[in-house]
């Protein structure tokens, strides 16, 4: 067992863990933050995307020990109290989900995309940037619409 400490959604957490523990296992099983999902467990579907030091990455393909000292944000950390993050609100308004399993990963990827490429995103860019996130309800059309709207809302909120 090895000691690990990181900041998750603003709270410092510490634990002794098996070195094999994946970040997604640490978040779900140790911290009971089950909003981050495990879809494929083979680095393909993106349901497990979280932010580590501001970068969106697949928490099923990251060792928890690698994140020692890091700042982690999960889907649970996006809203402010009862007020949804603009990207979450845009997914609701645009019906950007069907079963909802992929949604946490979609939203975490989308929020980082806006930080990286700005609020004005064309459809082609959004579709290219969603390469690492799979939706098996084939609901991409409304997801793309939601991300475009959410990006605009994030841009407006930042002004």
């Amino acid at each position, binding site marked *: 067992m*090895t000691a690990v400490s990181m900041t998750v959604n603003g709270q410092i957490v510490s634990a002794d863990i098996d*070195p*094999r523990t*994946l970040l997604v296992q640490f978040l779900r099983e140790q911290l009971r933050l089950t909003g981050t999902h495990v879809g494929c*467990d*083979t*680095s*393909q579907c*993106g349901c497990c*995307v979280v932010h580590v030091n501001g*970068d*969106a*990455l*697949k928490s099923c*393909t*990251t*060792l928890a*020990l*690698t994140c*020692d000292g890091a700042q982690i944000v999960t889907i649970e950390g996006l809203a402010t109290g009862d007020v949804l993050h603009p990207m979450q609100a845009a997914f609701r308004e645009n019906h950007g989900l069907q079963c909802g399993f992929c949604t946490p990963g979609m939203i975490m*990827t989308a929020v*980082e*995309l806006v930080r*990286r490429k700005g609020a004005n995103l064309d459809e082609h860019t959004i579709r290219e*940037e969603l*390469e*690492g*996130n799979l939706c098996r309800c084939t609901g991409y059309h409304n997801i793309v619409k939601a991300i475009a709207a959410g990006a605009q809302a994030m841009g407006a909120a930042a002004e």
Partner: protein
Amino acid sequence: MYDFQYLRPATVDEASRVLATQPDARPMSGGMSLLPATKQRLSHWSAIVDLGGVAGLDEIRMEHGALVIGARARHVSVLSSSVVRAAIPALAELAEGIGDPLVRNRGTIGGSVANADPAADYPAALLGLGATVVTNHREIAADDLFTGLFETALEAGEIITAVRFPVPKRAAYAKYRHPASRYAVVGAFVAETAEGVRVAVTGAASHVFRVPAFETALSKSLSQDALVGVTPAYGDLNADLFASSEYRAHVIGEMVRRAVQACLHPSTPSRNA
């Protein structure tokens, strides 16, 4: 995953000492290939030596007219680097086509090169540009580095610290990507260098290789016409459920043609949509 010891050394020397004394220990950079393979129990390590704690290996800079990229520079850093875009835009475009944004946020050039996946993109750039790999022990020409399927000339305890690219007159990478994984079914890197044209192909065999017949033809004239009638003889090309070896041989020619076109007209998209 099989049990392993996790180590996070602060220096290359410290990492090297562990790797030199434990033959079954494995260095990890971004872990984008290592962790999926380890999770599937395709590999069993006594220790994973996480190089993420080693500072200062991610710098991108020009040095004596050559582009030097630190081994721990992530794909996202290479694709967005103004230094790379100015010196070798084809390299930034190649990095932009690796995996997906989440992989590009984590994966590194040194990790990709050391892993030597037969379908990885960076090896084509290294061989096509005639790059030099800098390790903690020595410098290795790209021509001598890739020796087989996931095999390199790197020795136990040897760690890549940087890759040095001579700046070509022009260069382009064309990739026929697998629609799901975005690995190269076939990728061709064409570069016009001071010593002539170099052509490197990835995805098509056990490891990246050059195509002398195309290089000779294109060194006389970097043009589509120069390729007419040139039919290289290949060794064993890969055959899998995505492409037969005959098909790959055909696609090599097409990717080389597209890369030449992109060299001549840099605004031409060289990646397949």
